[in-house]
């Protein structure tokens, strides 16, 4: 019955996307706008799902009787080093159907909330085939009193390639060494939070992005309604934002991307269903209505890719807010998605999508002859000091 309800809901989701595209269409005035766009039903866009056992990709690690739950984040450092942020393992029902594909979304329950997750294997590193390289179990205890890692990143400008993990419910961002052996810094104060005026404490931070000089910006977040800017050492410099619906006001700033020339800060104002654009000192520049992204990323070709929480579409914007392309479709079958929470692309063009409700991270490979303008191109990382691992 639940499955039937899910499929009955799908047309409504698609109608939701119709609303999204119509809301965005007035901005499609730039060169090429509209011509490259996908349409409803364009589930995987220029990508294909390469492995017939695809849902099993990167899933063989939980102990018997358990399965990975909500997947908060994914970051592809290279085609053979992919970080997965898992919000704990979930106990499977006593009996699972023969056609159970291996992801919690199959049960039509949001993997983010039920049942209670066992916080193990929260950060793992896999190769391009999903084979386990590292499991940072030494840090699982950090997530016990929260809901696990929210998202995971490496700054493209950091030659040491520190790994940053946002933990919204413990109100901090952890900075680890590349190998995960040391926790070198914590932004915010563990388990403490405050309001928009406090530069020391965060309240439910969601996402982070960097300028080339190491300056970084944090979307903060579920509790506060602001952006905080830090210098490269992690010293807070300034903040902007209040609760509301006007310019420079937020309702759940859930994503952030930084780039362009001069650099701009693109903030997903999820609760207000828009993206707001600022300069690096918080001066409001623009807003792009009609989309409520869980997450955003700036691509190597200087576009903003946003994953919409309403339509489960991936939308490509130029830096002026014109929609150039979109694809994706709600669902739990391979290739479909349920609440994309972070996307990342490797240097070979593979795309990785972490789903918080679907409870899986999928890998997508470019179709032969795919239009390169439709592919998500990850920013190149600065070469690692001393060579890559």
């Amino acid at each position, binding site marked *: 019955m639940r499955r039937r309800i899910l499929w009955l809901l799908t047309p409504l989701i698609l109608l939701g996307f119709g609303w999204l595209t119509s809301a965005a269409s007035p901005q499609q005035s730039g060169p090429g706008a509209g011509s490259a766009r996908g349409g409803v039903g364009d589930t995987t866009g220029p990508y294909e799902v390469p492995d017939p056992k695809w849902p099993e990709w990167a899933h063989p690690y939980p102990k018997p009787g358990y399965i990975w739950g909500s997947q908060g984040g994914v970051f592809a450092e290279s085609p053979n080093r992919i970080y997965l942020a898992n919000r704990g393992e979930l106990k499977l029902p006593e009996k699972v159907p023969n056609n159970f594909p291996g992801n919690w979304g199959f049960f039509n329950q949001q993997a983010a909330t039920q049942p209670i997750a066992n916080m193990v294997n929260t950060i793992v590193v896999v190769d391009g085939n999903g084979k386990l390289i590292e499991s940072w179990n030494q840090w699982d205890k950090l997530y016990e009193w929260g809901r696990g890692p929210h998202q995971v990143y490496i700054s493209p400008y950091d030659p040491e390639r520190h790994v940053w993990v946002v933990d919204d*419910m413990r109100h901090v961002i952890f900075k680890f060494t590349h190998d995960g052996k040391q926790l070198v810094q914590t932004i915010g104060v563990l*388990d403490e939070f405050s309001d928009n005026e406090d530069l020391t404490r965060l309240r439910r931070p969601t996402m982070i992005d960097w300028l080339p000089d190491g300056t970084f910006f944090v979307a903060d977040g579920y509790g506060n309604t602001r952006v905080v800017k830090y210098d490269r050492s992690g010293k807070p410099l300034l903040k902007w934002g209040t609760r509301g619906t006007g310019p420079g006001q937020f*309702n*759940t700033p859930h994503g952030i991307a930084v780039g362009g020339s001069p650099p701009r800060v693109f903030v997903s104002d999820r609760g207000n269903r828009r993206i707001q654009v600022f300069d690096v000192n918080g001066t409001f520049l623009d807003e792009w209505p009609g989309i409520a992204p869980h997450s955003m990323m700036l691509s190597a070709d200087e576009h903003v890719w946003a994953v919409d929480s309403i339509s489960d579409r991936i939308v490509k914007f130029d830096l002026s807010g014109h929609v150039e392309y979109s694809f994706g479709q709600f669902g739990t079958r391979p290739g479909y998605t349920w609440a994309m929470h972070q996307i990342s692309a490797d240097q070979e063009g593979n795309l990785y999508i972490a789903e918080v409700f679907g409870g899986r991270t999928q890998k997508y490979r470019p179709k032969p002859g795919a239009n390169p303008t439709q592919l998500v191109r990850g920013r190149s990382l600065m070469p690692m000091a001393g060579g890559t691992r």
Partner: protein
Amino acid sequence: MTTTRVMSLVLAVGATLPSALTAQARPNFSGTWKFASSAPANYPGSNGWGVPSPIVVLAQTAAELTIESGQFGANPMKVVYKLDGSDTIWEAPSSSQSGSTAIVKWRTKASWDGNRLVLYTWNTALNQMRDIISLADGRLTIVRATEQPGPSTNATLTYSRGS
């Protein structure tokens, strides 16, 4: 009494007086408290977590504060906060919205901020609550912040003495 003895006495009193005054300044929240108002009005908590309980019963000793209340979920609970800042951790069965039962781990922590007491409550069913409690004019004020997977909530709750 020699000068040395006088000086020793003065030093001893000087050393103990601040802590004694601090202890004196700290209020005792014990009592049965009846819900009076909330701002915002009709504050619902977050899906039942943190919802204002009509009655809360507080019992305070030098070592701990115990709160008996319905604010921690579907059923009233007694929750203990140690006043030395250390954690209290325990496990208890809990029913989910779907009706299934699971063992949930709980954790509490308290710290003084002047004459206000800051109370943290966490559980592994993804609930957090921070209450800052204070006394004024015979009323108990609770500044509450809750966290669940969705957006955070904030409220100021007022209780009057009653049964």
